[in-house]
């Protein structure tokens, strides 16, 4: 899928780690400006690696990446100016309070909007004077998100921030994210392996499996274009096990019933010879 003016872009991106494992294999991806894109895939699909190449944390083995047209390995400073980043686990300093983190962000990035971040946290009743180590996992994730939002960057990259959160904290996190993205007109890329949580929040969907892009579409189109068949179907994308133990087929086109987003993702992961099962992906 190509878009007119991508804000995040990869071309033939491949990444191999030292031990010889290919995390990404020839990724061509263009993320348009605006809205939230979900980057979905099982563990070890390459989601984090892909995000980290945009942040400039991973150097591509082959191919190229662009952030607002800038190669982060050639001009890291300019690329980072466009980015706000939330790491996989909330990477906060144990010895610092919430307010200290905002001061630190201001020190590191002079354009950091401390008041904006502070007001976001105040809305969530997160005490500014509380030490990071005394916050719950959900609160730590919110602090990390507030720091990313405080950068006022046009692009937000969120690397599985929901993974360790309970359902309520996940919902609250997504609410804050969608609210901020819609009010600021930013572009967010949210990686997750929890499909149901991103269904409501995200506009677009990228399914990544075994280091390849298996599906890239809007959430609405991905759901309307697919259906489920309980028997083998000539237009099937793939078959996979249903929760009741039966085998079902994801069909591009008309089948017996509409597919859920979860089933669309599972079908494409199965087509990518992923070992994902419904339980693992859910």
């Amino acid at each position, binding site marked *: 899928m190509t878009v007119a003016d991508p804000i995040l872009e990869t071309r033939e991106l491949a990444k191999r780690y030292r031990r010889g494992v290919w995390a990404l294999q020839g990724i061509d991806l263009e993320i348009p400006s605006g809205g939230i894109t979900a980057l979905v895939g099982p563990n070890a699909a390459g989601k984090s690696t892909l995000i980290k190449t945009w942040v400039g944390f991973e150097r591509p083995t082959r191919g190229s990446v662009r952030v607002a047209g800038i190669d982060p390995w050639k001009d890291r400073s300019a690329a980072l100016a466009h980015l706000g980043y939330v790491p996989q686990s909330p990477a906060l300093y144990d010895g610092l309070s919430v307010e200290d983190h905002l001061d630190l962000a201001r*020190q590191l990035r002079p354009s950091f909007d401390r008041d904006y971040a502070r007001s976001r946290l105040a809305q969530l009743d997160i005490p500014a004077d509380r030490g990071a180590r005394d916050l719950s996992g959900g609160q730590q994730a919110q602090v990390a998100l507030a720091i990313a939002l405080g950068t006022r960057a046009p692009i937000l990259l969120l690397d599985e921030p929901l993974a360790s959160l309970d359902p309520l904290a996940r919902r609250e996190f997504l609410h804050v994210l969608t609210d901020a993205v819609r009010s600021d007109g930013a572009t967010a890329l949210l990686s997750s392996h929890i499909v149901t949580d991103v269904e409501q929040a995200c506009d677009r969907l990228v399914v990544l499996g075994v280091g390849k892009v298996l599906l890239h579409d809007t959430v609405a189109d991905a759901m309307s274009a697919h259906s489920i068949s309980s028997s083998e179907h000539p237009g099937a994308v793939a078959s996979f096990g249903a929760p009741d133990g039966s085998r079902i087929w994801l069909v591009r086109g008309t089948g017996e019933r509409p597919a859920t987003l979860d089933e669309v993702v599972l079908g494409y992961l199965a087509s990518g010879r992923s070992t994902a099962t419904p339980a693992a992906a859910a």
Partner: protein
Amino acid sequence: MTGALTWARLSYRQQKWELLLVVIGVVGLTAGMVWFATTLTALREASPECLAGLSPGFASPAEEGPPAACQAFLTEYYGLENWASNLTTLAWVAPFGMGVVLGAPLVAREIDGGTAQLAWSLSRSRVGWLLRRIAFVTLLGLGLLAIIAVGSELLTAAIFPDRTLGEDFVWFGRRGVPIVARGVGAILLGVLVGAVIGRVLPAVLVSILVIGLAFTGMSLALDQVNRAEATLRPMYAGPGVPQQFDVAGMQVDFGIERTDGQFMTYTEAFERGLNPNFTDENGQVFESEEDLRSGDPIGRDAMLVIPGEKYPLLVLRDSAVAVAVGLLALALSAAVVVRRRPA
């Protein structure tokens, strides 16, 4: 200025426990040195007659020796002096300890704890981040080392009140500027090890090895360079008169001054097939009794001594090399931080 203070506050909070540990250690050590300095000075002033005729810092009596009534005093005095000497050994170790305790965890903890991901995604320049990250801790560490350096000078002056310490190699490296300069090298080497390894405990352990090896190598190399500053002194000033010991100088080596003016150690003499086993009362060295009888020496006993006047030069050289090692380590740290993954 406000920004610098904010950064100092944040830096302190990120490394509070190490800094407190180091500050307590430095305060304790310096207080100990000051106490010994004042106590030894007070003892000396209270009983000057007991130390008259004794070389400062040496218990060897001169011609007559101290009065018998001074025995208890001298036991106490030299006991305290021995303890004080141990404190200067701690002053010598302090810069290396700073490198391990303060330097190694600085970047390693950021990578180990994952906070480098936050910092490096916010900071436009990783080199800029590194310089700011290490600035407060390094400056504080060097300030503390400066306190130790001054304390150690005070203690040395108290023990050797009659000597000109600016031109004296007594306790070289255990007092004054070299302590601070070695701190620069050790802390920045620690930072480099931490940046490469990226885990706190392994970085601390490896930094002990790296800092130890680096400064041992540096010391051995400087010994060779400094040898050029040494002058040759015969062991005997005249027939049966031993040369007066140069307490301010640094004894580099002992050996034989050949008749052609060249110096060789006894080991080198044996390696060259010479047999310097016979000496006369003038310190002349012979290969055989026959040579001894015929007065045909191969040379005379001599030592290589760097005179005390060279002390400022060697301090400068030692300090410059330590700082250069530190700056090289900093440059390498920057290269590592720019290229490495944050976690």
